[in-house]
């Protein structure tokens, strides 16, 4: 099935198995979801549980927080990460703080799904990758499923969490084809996944750039460079040990992140490698990120702004040549 269908299957599974679960957001019902993720769910579960919301990001995200406090298990959809700026107050100041501010009396079992990323010529108000911002916030979790199986499994795992969980779905992944084992064991969202093992260099990525990173690894293999590819899956909490184990083996790392370079989550990973694997490193950790420009519309400019397979390949080659 596709990534889109996998998210839908997980939604259906959750809605069927737990009466507390409901889906709320703009056009999740009659329209079927801006990315057709929830298509057909309204017919099966009705307008109370597949709830079309007005254009009021702050209010319906806040309502999700309140409903979670009230014992429900809301799944809120925010159409595009840029729109989530309108709800940032509710997210940072309420969702993330209530457990602590209340001395542990309250918790907010809220799941928020957000479409993210560029590559579709949507220009400067629809194309960014702000997962790294979210990963800065104590009190929430940040998931970035990059595969069809994770799109399914991580949503179900998120619903078992007692605290707010943000799931970032890179919009270019929705048509991706893959396998889902609906009978599989629940995913441990605290673990990163090694998508390809190798001994020469570690490529660390997540979400929308996993595909490009795997392609880069194949390309490097033709060169005789065996790259290990780590899919972080979860940015917060970060599975540092998987990264460190790999670097203990490869002694080199390239971090691939679609966010703007300065202040990207890749910077955090680089800093943690610095702090915990300094003596393992044969070369400085490199980053491949997006150019620091609001996303341009024109295809050639957008392509130039986003991380490219060649960038990853040459960054890896560079590390190996420079510090052979």
């Amino acid at each position, binding site marked *: 099935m596709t990534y889109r269908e996998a998210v839908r299957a997980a939604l259906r599974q959750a809605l069927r198995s737990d009466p507390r679960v409901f889906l709320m957001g703009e056009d999740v019902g009659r329209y079927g979801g801006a990315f057709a993720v929830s298509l057909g769910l309204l017919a099966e579960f009705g307008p109370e549980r597949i709830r079309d919301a007005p254009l009021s990001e*702050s209010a319906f995200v806040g309502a999700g*927080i309140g*409903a979670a406090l*009230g014992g429900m298990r809301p799944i809120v959809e925010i159409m595009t990460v840029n729109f989530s700026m309108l709800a940032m*107050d*509710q997210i940072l100041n309420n969702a993330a703080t209530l*457990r602590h*501010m209340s001395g542990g009396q309250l918790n907010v079992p809220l799941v928020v799904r957000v479409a993210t990323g560029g590559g579709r010529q949507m220009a400067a108000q629809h194309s960014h990758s702000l997962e790294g911002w979210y990963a800065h916030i*104590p009190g929430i979790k940040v998931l970035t499923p990059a595969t069809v199986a994770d799109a399914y499994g991580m949503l179900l795992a998120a619903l*078992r969490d007692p605290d707010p969980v943000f799931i970032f779905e890179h919009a270019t992944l929705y048509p991706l084809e893959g396998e889902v084992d609906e009978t599989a064991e629940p995913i441990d969202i605290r673990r990163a996944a090694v998508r390809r093992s190798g001994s020469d260099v570690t490529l660390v990525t997540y979400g929308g750039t996993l595909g490009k990173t795997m392609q880069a690894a194949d390309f490097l293999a033709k060169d005789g460079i065996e790259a290990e590819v780590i899919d972080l899956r979860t940015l917060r909490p970060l599975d540092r040990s998987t990264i460190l184990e790999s670097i203990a083996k490869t002694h080199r790392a390239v971090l691939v992140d679609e966010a703007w370079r300065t202040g990207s989550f890749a910077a955090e990973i680089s800093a943690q490698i610095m702090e915990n694997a300094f003596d393992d490193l044969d070369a400085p950790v490199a980053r491949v990120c997006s150019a620091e420009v609001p996303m341009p519309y024109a295809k050639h400019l957008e392509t130039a702004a986003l991380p490219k397979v060649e960038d990853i390949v040459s960054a890896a080659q560079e590390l190996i040549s420079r510090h052979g």
Partner: protein
Amino acid sequence: MATTSSTSCPPVSREHALFLLREMLRIRRFEEKAAEMYSLQKIHGFLHLYIGEEATGVGTMQAFTPQDAIVATYREHGHALARGIPSTVLMAEMFGKATGCSHGHGGSMHFFDASRRFYGGYAIVGGGLPIAVGLALADKLRNQLRVTACYFGDGAVAEGEFHESLNLAALWKLPVVFLCENNLYAMGTALVRHQAQTDISLKAGSYGLASQAVDGMDVLAVEAAAKQAADAVRSGNGPFLLELRTYRFRAHSMADPDLYRPKEEIEEWKKRDPISLFESRLREWGLLTEADRARIEKEVAAEIDEAVRFAEASPFEPVEELLKDVSGAVKP
């Protein structure tokens, strides 16, 4: 604007009248003590006093049952007391103690008591409204017949979250009683300088909501209006906007030099002090004797002294527990 016309025959039982008076006095004395403790540096951070507004918190709270939910602001001491949270744990919270209602994590602005469905204590103006909408949505989705009381100030009315929340609650017919405590100022900004239309109850029209404005200095009028509002909401007609016209006698917070309003204005309003106003009514009606008054004052004083003693005597949360309440464990 609704008021109770002073009649010769009392519209309230002696017992209930004395209860309301006591509740208002508890708040007044608690706040006076809090101010004192702040100047003694037992309390820090922001401290927003409720003095002058006691009738709105006490009067409205009579309309809600323990099953209902309460959402308030950083000026919530009065609401917390009227809801029945012991003054001991509230004072301890402001002292930053582990025995505080929020274990010392919240302070004056962030009182919580899950057992009493007191959901805080929100210090981002307007930030509590969407939360209240969500609590009510949860009840609606489970067909639970209870309401959520959402308190906020006149300043919050300018925030987008006010607009979005009232529309959402009205559109989905959610059981929320929106309680706007209009004290004529948002910090130093007068109502006329932050609202193009200063009649707040009138704004309900944009959402097809029922609304009313009431004299917030008249505790009986407030109680009656709040009960009507809550009944309307309980009957399933969707939310209600109740505007409570009141005034704060103290500065916005202890940090506020209060330069933006004429002293005469404050003095004028103090003539309508909700407590003395109610007392004189009760005397007119022969419901309050000097002895009652003295007894209540004495009992309240004892309660507040005990609150301070409790707060003083309480331990701090061990610093090792700093990260304890950030995230919870996944239940299997």
